């Protein structure tokens, strides 16, 4: 079976700074794969490199059996869509939800826009009532739902999720995570998800990769992490940190 995403010895260099130092990754179709690490570990850079938003110096990225060049064509973006971390920054402040959702449809020349917009809004649990609102009239959770609707409207097979809930309150986070899981089940999507929160990754993903300063530390199944079968100290530290504060006295 061809992998949904295969990344081979990928290097990303910003000026002279090596943000990714030969990272390889393999995600099967329909799988949910997590990337964890601290800030600066390169997890978001890896995601952005796949989406064509980071300068790739060497290595290769293959999506659904097709090796990507430096420029992404339209067909790629019909397959791969991204949801960004900050729902306050990723929606155009002067466009209504309707206008935001029409943009990808216009770019890709879809004729049945009306129907698709309604379906996308229904799917993320926002009714038609939200269609002509501006993003400042929405709460953080509603904005992230609009961002997810925008990603889904082209019916991609792969979603890249960059900390999709870290800007949200805990209760809203639960709603958005549930929504993402349900959509994945219904549409048989492949997820590649970045988070600094191990609990979210083990909840959402079957496999994960731990990253540190631009390199892969280890690959694990989520079940291994739950059973604490980890081999590297770095991962163990992350696990301990996610247990919360322990007073040493």
């Amino acid at each position, binding site marked *: 079976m061809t992998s949904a995403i295969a990344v081979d010895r990928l290097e990303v260099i910003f000026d002279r700074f090596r943000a990714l130092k030969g990272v390889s990754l393999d995600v099967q179709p329909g799988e949910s794969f997590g990337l964890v690490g601290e800030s600066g570990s390169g997890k978001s850079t890896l995601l952005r490199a796949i989406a064509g938003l980071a300068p790739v110096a060497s290595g290769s990225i293959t999506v659904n059996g097709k090796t990507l060049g430096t420029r992404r064509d339209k067909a790629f973006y019909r397959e791969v869509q991204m949801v960004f971390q900050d729902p306050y920054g990723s929606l155009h402040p002067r466009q209504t939800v309707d206008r935001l959702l029409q943009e990808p449809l216009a770019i890709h020349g879809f004729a049945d826009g009306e129907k698709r917009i309604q379906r996308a809004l229904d799917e993320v649990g926002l009714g038609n009532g939200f269609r002509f609102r501006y993003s400042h009239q929405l709460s953080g959770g509603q904005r992230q739902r609009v961002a997810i609707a925008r990603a889904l409207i082209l019916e991609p097979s792969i979603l890249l999720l960059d900390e999709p809930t870290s800007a949200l*309150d*805990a209760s*809203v986070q639960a709603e958005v995570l549930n929504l993402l899981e349900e959509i994945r089940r219904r549409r048989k999507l492949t997820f590649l998800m970045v988070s600094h929160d191990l*609990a979210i990754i083990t*909840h959402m993903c079957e496999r994960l990769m731990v990253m540190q300063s631009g390199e892969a530390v280890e690959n694990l199944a989520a079940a291994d992490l739950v059973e604490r079968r980890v081999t590297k100290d770095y991962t163990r530290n992350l696990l301990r940190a996610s247990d*919360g*504060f322990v007073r040493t006295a």
Partner: protein
Amino acid sequence: MSGETKTLLDVDDLRVSFPTRTGLIEAVRGVSFSLGRERLGIVGESGSGKSQTGRAIMGLTPPQARISANKLAFDGIDLLAASPRERRKLRGKRIAMILQDPKYSLDPVMSIGRQIVETLRTHEMVGKAEARDRALAMLEAVQIRDPARVFDLHPHEVSGGMGQRAMIAMMLIAGPEMMIADEPTSALDVTVQLDVLGILDRLVSERGMGLIFISHDLRLVSSFCDRVIVMYAGKVVEQLKASELGRAQHPYTRGLLNCMPKIGADRHPLPVLDRKPEWAA
């Protein structure tokens, strides 16, 4: 924690509201609590009024806001009746505040050392050389390995964790009796977060300060504080000992605890909060 019972801060029926074009927004609606030399957590989601409560105590409420209370007293001083001059004397000297993101709350054009020295010399009559020595000692106390180097750095030259330590150093140098920490670790990585909390914990217990720890993270707060206040829509819905969080009564507290993904708990879908209008009543 200990048997210390002296009340440092007394808050009774605190209200903060903001007049807007569309009417009065009540951010804090009758909050009451008291603080001794202990660690008190205030938890709530965005818009629950937790930060405005902290700011009202500190005297940082915006001028257009209306603020009222039956009692808002720090060590017997009525904070609402105090003159701006008196409040300035308290602020930084006896009550300190740590903010969320060191990137925005440190002065970008002043070296870290000078900022710390400025705080000290505002509140105490000390010479330049002594102030420098004390600032260096304070930087060392917050576990900065090379204090002399960090002293001369500007905030953009240090990491988030280091910046937050510098901020703690700056807040502690005048020896405050009470500290308000508003989301002090939310902008930091989980591992760095624990280091910073460890430092804060040690300094607070060594110096016998009262600490108000404001956060949205119920789990973190309960592992760090002695007592927790849960706020919802500007009101306190529940007050309980951190160790008894598992026995929380209010559905909001329980919902908040429940809805977070946990390592090892296989719950699909996650339980979500079913907000009842009577919680806000």
